[in-house]
Every structure is written in C-alpha cells, then in structure tokens.
C-alpha cells in the first residue's frame, strides 16, 4: 500500500491547507472582527497546529483510526465513532464545495453560468473518492509547489496597494469581536481531522510530529500575511469582498498595461482548491470503508452515492449560498471544535498497543 511520505505531508500542511481559508473566510472575519481579523486566525492556527502535533504522535503507533478505536473500545463503538466522524466530514465538505462553486462563477465568468459549468467537478470528486486517501500523497507533491507559486505571486502583486496601518488599533473590536470571529470561522479549520483518517497510511519518521505542526503553522503565517494584505487593501470595505485571493491583485499598476496577468496565479490557487475541496469527501468515504472494508465495488458505489447526494444538494441550494454559510458558520459552529479539536485530542488516550488475541 502507498504510504504518504514526510515531504508529501509537509507540502499539504504548509502549502495546500492554507488555500481553502483564503476564499471567503477573510471577508467573514472582517464582518465579525473588523481590523482585528488576524487574531482569530492566529488562534485557529495555534489550536490546529497543537492538534496536528497530537495526531501525528498517534501516527507513530502505525494503526488506522478504526484499528485504534477497535483496540480500545471494541468493534461496535469504533464503527459508530468512525461513521459519525465520516458523517461530520461529509457535512463539513458542503460549505467549501458551494464556496468553490460561487467562487468559480463569480471570478471566472462575466455572467452567472449554468450549474453545468461546475458539473465536471462531481465525476472527478467521485473518482478521487473511490481511490484510497493515501493516493493523495502524489497529488500533494504536485499541488504544493503550485499553491506556493500562486500565493507568492498574488502577494507580490498585492503588496504595493496595501496599507497595513488599517490593522490598527489592535483590539478595537473588543473581546466579543475577536471571540465571535474565532467561533464563527471554526468551519474552515478541519485539517486535523483529515490526518486522523490518514493514520496508518503515514510513513512516520522521527520528529514528524513537531515538524508537521511547524509546517502547518508556517502555512498559517502565510495565510495570516495574505489576510493582512487583504484587509490593508480593502479596509472598511473588506466585508464586501467575497473572493479574497481573486480581488487583491487587481490594483497592481502593471495590470492596466499587461492585462489581468494575475489570473495566472488565481488559476493556480483555484486548481489547488479543486483538490482541497474533495479532501473532506474522500476522508468521509475512507472512514466508511474502514468500517465496512474496501470490498470490490463498495468504494465506487460509495463514491458515486456521496457525490450524487452532493449534486442534489447543490441543485437545491444553488442560490442559497448565504443561507448555507450562515447556518454552518453561525448556527452550528460549535460542532466543529468538538470534532476537529476534542475528538483528535481524546484519541491520545486510546490504548497504545494492540490487544493480544487469545
């Protein structure tokens, strides 16, 4: 079986994972926290880096999540927990997907295209879901550099227009603003849960736990830098700028002469986003397969069923993006820390060694 190497994992943590937070989250943060929007992101990255450190410590044990749970709690309890986590991931996948859809429609099209323009995403997602999660390793080898080039390119084109003084005075939104900013953006931070499903598929090497956490935090600093630039450019009007990474580079003076050269970098990040958005789906399917076993046609059937369900949901909620975002990020936001922080940390208390069978 393919195992994910340290390099592939670090590419994901440092380069791919931050991209999903740079579409709509920055403007939502501006709504809740105003010019203090960096503090909630910093809190999230500190929390997630700590959880990733804990999850990567679990990777040392060489067992999958299901095996670890079964070892400590028995098969039925393990099945229930893994299925619950999978259901959560499939639920959590919906917001990034619909976010990606409106991003593509709003950024790459001059008029609203039909849903058909987004349709090829679903067979691709179904295909990826039918593959083992560990197959993502090779993809991250490719996506890591693309994401890096995209983000650096956009940052370079955006710096000239930014006024970082707009981030002052620190604390002006008060504790309420910072806390609501932190709470209502939990739905964009579930990277640690992916890693939980990768347990047993990671080629663990010495020091991987702290290095993984460090790389994740470095990626977080890049995201924080971008969000600072974003707010420095749009300031009080940042709340009106939905698609952050497609907006900041528009003001680069060379664009009036060269045209929208920044689209090269926007395309790069949008490409990475395609795979990042399928990740919770794939992890959700992986969880179900851990319970029922990777039988012959089951991965394909599950992958088709899950993406089919998403197609239906996408049609139903086609013009209700605002409502979906409001529900997920503001109404049920508390679910996210339970599954992405508490559950991975509780896994540290699972039995370390497999129970000897009689």
């Amino acid at each position, binding site marked *: 079986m393919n195992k994910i190497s340290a390099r592939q994992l670090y590419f994901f943590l440092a380069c791919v994972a931050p991209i999903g937070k740079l579409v709509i989250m920055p403007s939502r943060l501006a709504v809740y926290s105003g010019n203090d929007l960096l503090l909630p992101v910093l809190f999230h990255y500190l929390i997630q880096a700590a959880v990733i450190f804990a999850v990567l410590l679990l990777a040392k044990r060489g067992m999958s999540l299901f095996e670890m749970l079964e070892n400590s709690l028995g098969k039925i309890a393990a099945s229930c927990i893994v299925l619950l986590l999978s259901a959560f991931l499939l639920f959590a996948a919906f917001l990034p997907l619909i976010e990606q859809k409106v991003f593509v429609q*709003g950024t790459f099209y001059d008029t609203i295209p039909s849903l058909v*323009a987004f349709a090829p995403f679903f067979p*691709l997602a179904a295909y990826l879901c039918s593959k083992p999660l560990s197959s993502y390793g090779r993809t991250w080898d490719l996506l890591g550099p693309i994401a890096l080039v995209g983000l650096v390119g956009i940052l370079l084109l955006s710096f000239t227009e930014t006024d970082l003084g707009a981030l*002052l*005075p620190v604390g002006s939104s008060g504790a309420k603003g910072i806390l609501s900013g932190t709470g209502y953006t939990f739905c964009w931070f579930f990277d640690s849960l992916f890693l939980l499903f990768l347990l047993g598929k990671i080629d663990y090497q010495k020091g991987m736990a702290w290095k993984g956490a460090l790389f994740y935090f470095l990626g977080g600093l890049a995201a924080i830098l971008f969000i600072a630039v974003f707010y420095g450019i749009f*300031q009080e009007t940042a709340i009106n700028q939905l698609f952050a990474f497609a*907006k900041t580079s528009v003001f680069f*003076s060379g664009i009036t002469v060269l045209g929208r050269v920044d689209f090269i970098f926007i395309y790069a990040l949008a490409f990475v986003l*395609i795979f990042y958005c399928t990740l919770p789906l794939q992890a959700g399917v992986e969880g179900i397969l851990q319970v029922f076993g990777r039988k012959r046609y089951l991965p394909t059937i599950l992958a088709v069923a899950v993406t089919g369900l998403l197609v239906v949901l996408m049609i139903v909620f086609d013009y209700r993006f605002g409502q979906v975002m409001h529900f997920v990020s503001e109404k049920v936001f508390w679910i996210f820390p339970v599954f992405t922080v508490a559950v991975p940390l509780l896994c540290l208390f699972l039995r370390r060694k497999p129970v000897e069978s009689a």
Partner: protein
Amino acid sequence: MKARKFLKTLPMKFYLLLLGLILFSFFSNDFGLVDIQKTAVILAAGIDKTEEGFSLTAQIAVPKGSDRSQGGTSSVDIESEGATVSDCVSNIFSETGWVPKLVFINLIVIGEEAAKEDVISYLNYFMRNEYMNDSCYLAVCEGKAHDLLTSKSATDDTSALAIQKLFSNAAEKTGKVMPNNLKDFSIGYYGVSKSGYLPYLRSQSQKGAEHSPSPGTGESGGGSSSSSSGSSSGASGDKDEKVYIAEETALFSEGKLVAILPREQTLAFSMLSGNIVSGTFNAKEKDGKAVTLAVIENKGGVSLDMSGAPRVKMQIDLTVRLCCRGTTAPIEDISEDDVSEELLESAKEVLSQYVADLWETGKKSGCDLFHLRRDLYRASLKKYKEWKDFLPEVAEPEIKTEVKSLK
C-alpha cells in the same frame, strides 16, 4: 494482453479526461464570448439626479464596422431614468434589448447636482455588483454627467476614453489631477474620516479643431433610435468638439460634495501625497516675471501631533530644476538647470500659500481631507474618542516647505 493493459490504464485516462474537463469548464469563461448584438458593453456611466429619482447615461461600445483602417472605439449613449440606479440599468435593457454588462466599465461620472447628495446612494449599486471592477475611476463634473458623456471629444471617438486619459499614472505624476477609484472612495466614506475626494471635470470647447467624420462611427448599434434620449458619439455633426479638464478636485464629507479645490490647491494636495515626478509649477522672479520649475523629486506627508494641542504638520520636500523662463535668456542660462536662491525662496512662498489655502478649504468644508481622524483612531482609540468631533477644525497647521535645486 493489450486489452488488459488498456483496462489497467483506463482509470488514469478517465482521471485526466475529467481534469481536462474541469479546467475547460472552470477557466474558459465561455471563451469570453460576448454577443455584441445582444449585449451592452458599458464603458462609462454618468449619473444625474432627476425629480423622480436618477438618470443614468450609459456609454456603450458598439462595433465600428468592417473598415479596419479606422482606429478607436465607437459608442452610443443611452439615457435612462428610474427610482434607483438599478432601475435605470434595467430600463436600458427594456428600452434597447441590450443586456447591460458592467465588466468593462471603467469610469463613473456624477453630475454636480447629484454629487451634493450622498453619492453612495448611487454608487452602492456598483459596489454590490460582483462583476464590477473596484478600480473603476470616479469623477464629478460641472453640470450634468449626461452632457459631459454625450459631448463630442476632440481627442477620441468616445468621450469616456478621452476622459480616462486624464487619469493615467503619467497624468497623476504631473500633479495636475488627483484621480480616485471606487475602492478608495468607498474606503474613505466608510472609514472613520467619512471623507474623500474625486477629480472635478469640466469640458471646454476646442475652437477651430476639425474632426473628420469616421465612416464606421455613429451609424451602428441602433442605440440612438431605440431610445429617445439616446445619442451617438464619434459621429460628425454640429456639436462643438470638447477637451476635458480635471485640474480641480471635489471634496466630499459623508458622501456629499462640500468644496472644490482649484488647480493650485490640487497641486499642493498632490505634492503632500508625494505623487509628483515630472510636474511643473510657477515661481516668480524679483521683477514679477513667471518662471516654471520642474519637479524632479517629491516627498510629502501630513501627520497629526497630539502631544499638546492638536497640530497638523504638513511637509513638502521638492527637488526642482529650472524648466522655462518667461523672458529671453542668454545661452549660458539655458545650459544651466540650477535654480537661484531667490527663485527657491519664491517657490517656497508660493507652495506654502497653496498648502495654507488647501488647509483652509478643507477646514471650512468639514472634509477630513488628510484623514486625520483615521490617523488618530489608529494611533490611540482613547484620544480618538476625545477628539473625533473636533478634528480637523481645531488643529493648528504647521507648514514646512523645502525646495532645493538639482545640482
């Protein structure tokens, strides 16, 4: 054997095919195809106030015909009225059958009367539109925006394109104009300063200019016939040809036009912003004759000092060279760029006066032109709460002008 190999590689082929399909559907933007017969590609919009609501003049690009020897862009102007700007845009569709497309709009002109009311009530339509470019230029004009946009330009087939030339980077560096865009104006409006500025446009007849009629212009599109208020630009006719001037600057407080800076104060404002690279201004010789100095380097800044009573420090540092005397000069003088001490002193006096006038205009109008309230807010929330209702009016100006000659 071959069949097995084919089946083995089939998933990968399927994967690549899907990936190709995704890239194609996500990034093709329908190949950017615009059905020009059905779409109104709006280049510029003019907004005026009417008794019932608003009037929107949209300058729409139209095909110029098959004659490739003709350059430039042809356009028709459609005027539409409604209770909101959105109404006006919808009316363009209902009156002409063209679907308005705002992606290419790069200039919004607000009529002088309309600018005296909170302009965000017009601009919010453009801010809400996700396809609209935030770097779109904004301007206020003398009289009606409709008249300005439908006027015939002496320099371009389309008035909007002629006006946009005034807002280029090169023009901005001369210090003659202070362009502003939708993003920066709305930041000023929604920020704690609640103030902003826009270039103030005037048109002026270009007497004696001859403009040969363009065979492809003004005859296509059908805009003028589909709406009673439509007119076509680029066509030859009995209209005066106009040139446009944007040397004045309109000041806004809480979205309303409150004052207009004359060209000298616009220059001072530009110098305080440190924008000028190749601009010129006039100083005076002892005998009162004008001498033009060219700015080689410009540093400028405005800062608020709250250590005692509020003081505003306005500083301009210029490096200049002699550009032109209004009198005859010996060849030895022409070969030298040096500026005499007397001229430098005169330049200092002139600029200090411009800055002092600029400060007074801003203070009287209530426009926080230099965003002093914003600076204080960023520096100290406590002092901001204490002083926000008194700034900039109570602040004492401290003007410092340094002009040195290029060695």
